[in-house]
């Protein structure tokens, strides 16, 4: 298993996780840190937007369905603000039509829960490369 060497926080790219699911907010950061990323988590899109992480975020891991502002809505909002952050959508809803649509609208990837850690890593690499 590949793992990145320890980077200093200044070198670790920031990945923000926005998901109303507590277990996601609990489990993802450790994995992402193993990948060598710095991580910040937010329970809602609104809180992310209100934070100071919008600028520094190199990649956004975004839940699709959330109470309040949904994932796609946040995506639209960021575009409006000209904050082109690469987005990796995660969702439990295995609707086949969802993924193509999201990719079309500019998402890097859409992963279905539960997803493999390697799939997430691949998506993250793509996201950072395109930055």
């Amino acid at each position: 298993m590949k793992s990145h060497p320890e980077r200093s926080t200044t070198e670790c790219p920031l990945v923000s996780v926005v998901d109303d699911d507590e277990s996601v907010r609990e489990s993802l950061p450790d994995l992402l840190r193993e990948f060598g990323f710095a991580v910040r988590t937010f329970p809602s899109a609104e809180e992310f937007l209100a934070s100071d992480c919008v600028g520094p975020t190199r990649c956004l891991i975004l839940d699709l369905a959330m109470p309040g502002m949904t994932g796609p809505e946040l995506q639209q909002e960021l575009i409006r603000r000209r904050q082109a952050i690469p987005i990796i959508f995660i969702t439990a809803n295995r609707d086949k039509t969802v993924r193509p649509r999201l990719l079309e609208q500019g998402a890097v990837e859409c992963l279905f829960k539960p997803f493999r850690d390697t799939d997430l890593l691949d998506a993250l690499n793509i996201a950072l490369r395109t930055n």
Partner: protein
Amino acid sequence: MTTQHGTLDNGWTGFQGVNSDVTAANTATTDLINILDAVEVPVVVLRRDFTIAYFNKAGADMLGLSPSDIGRTPRDIPVLAALPRLEQQCSQVITSKVESKVDFRDANKWFVVRISPCMQSDRQVTGSVLTFTNVTAFRSSIDQAIYERECTKAILNTVADPLVVLSADQRIQSGNRAFYTMFGVSRDETQGVPLCELGNGAFELALLRTQLEEMLAGSRAFQPVEVDHVFTVKGPSTFILDAHPLSFPGHSERRVLVTFQDITARKQAEAAKDLRSEEELRRSEAFLAEGQRLSLTGTFSWKVATEEITWSEQLYRIFEFDRSVPVTLGLIGTRVHPDDMPMLNDMIDRARAVSDFEYEHRLLMPDHFIKFVHLTAHGVRDSQGRLEYIGAVQDVTQRRLSEEALGKARSELANLARITSLGVLTASIAHEVNQPLSGIITNASTCLRMLSADPPNIEGARETARRTIRDGNRASDVITRLRTLYSKKDLSLEAMDLNEATREVTSLSLNELQSKRVILRHELADDLPPVIGDRVQLQQVILNLLRNAADAMNGVEDRPRELLIKTECDQGDGVRLSVKDAGVGFTPQAADKLFEAFFTTKSDGMGIGLSISRSIIEAHRGRLWATANDGPGATFAFSIPCWRESLADAETRLNWTDPLTGAA
């Protein structure tokens, strides 16, 4: 010639001739007087001037005369005065010398008074002799006879049928009014006319004449003769002639009474009725045939002893045989479905003994088409005690096929519904389970990476492992607290009657239960208090219990598949509904797991019904449980609080918890 008047003791004054010897004349007169007195006939002699010259003893008695009445006129005698024209008639007699009679009545006695001229030897009329004959008896018998005759005539004339009396030589003597009227003839026209000449030869029948002769001869009784004829006045008619001999004692002359019974109208009516009943018969036969055709029912008769079988046209059509083919048991056998032949043979064997039978079997047509027929037959015994079956066979193929199709469609629909709702449920479960599952995989992946690091991150690994276990438990909880099929916002609480809700469910399920041969019984308490609940959800629970109970009895053959649904008040302000079956029951080991999600003893079920039902009931603040019966089967029951207890909560919402997430 000179006349001499002599006076006698009793007042006789006679005229005597010139040359008579007074003594001799006196003697003769006395003898005469004595004779006259002995005679019971009253005699009165009147002179030419109508004065009374003489009367005898009887006359004195009758008329109340005394010697002083000599010389008086009849007008002086009360009785004689009652004879109005007496003097007139006397003078007429004197003049004409011819006697006459007059009737008179004294009280209730009838007399005939004979007035004779009193003549001398020289034929000179000297007066009149009155003799009184009492004809009372005679007269009354005459009257009686006249009366009776008149009565009889009246009766005969009232009789509508013509009657005629013939003489021994078959001539018409007399007839009643009906006779003359009917034939348009008069008494004079027909008097003495031979019967055979009547009615322009209508009765010129050899048969009639011969019969009358034989009857009159006494050799044979008369047999009524029917005569058809077109009469000039009456038109076409039919009569029945009957004849009776008439003979009276003292009369040697034989007579015949002939009666004519006009049956023209009756014959016409009978002909019309025959026509009508023929027509009616034809119509009813046509109705029957049509009815048989429409209902696809044919009828048959089977004489068991002779094996003679008769079929209606429709039955030929059902069996698809030509009508000319003679029907035998063997022929029938060629159409019976081979699998059902044993049943048919068994039926035939038993039929020779029983009196009624009924069963269904299949026919196999030459083109391999299968027909279902329903047969009923009733045994009757003829006058000789021989057994004959009369029966009907109905082609019920259509019904059977549509029943099967319906049954198939219904089960397919049920399957579909189950699959659909299952699909919905599965999707929602999947969705809910995916969240913790995702966490598990992420944490476990992290754990592995941490352990592979150099040096391994033991603390981190421990933490991720802990989270993994926790998420695993969460997933298990999700599955345990299944989401109901109806989302939270569709809930509608109302005060409801559990009996009514139950009846709705059972009436909807009746078909399904009947097709599974389940005998459904209700024992719904009359005084059941209302409950607050979601009607649809509670009905779902009842339906689930009903279906489970029916399914549990699926293989039961040795006892009736009885299902008892019962409502009652539960102690402690609750309402209890129980469903008791006579099925396979459950083992003590299974008892604990019955309400677990996904637990099932059924081969094709997911077993989620009971766990959802329990959730629903618990959400209603009730409880659902199962007990094994004393006999076979199990009883599932739930109890929920009734209105009274939750009255306090009526203002506020019932404390509803989402069965899946546990959120209020």
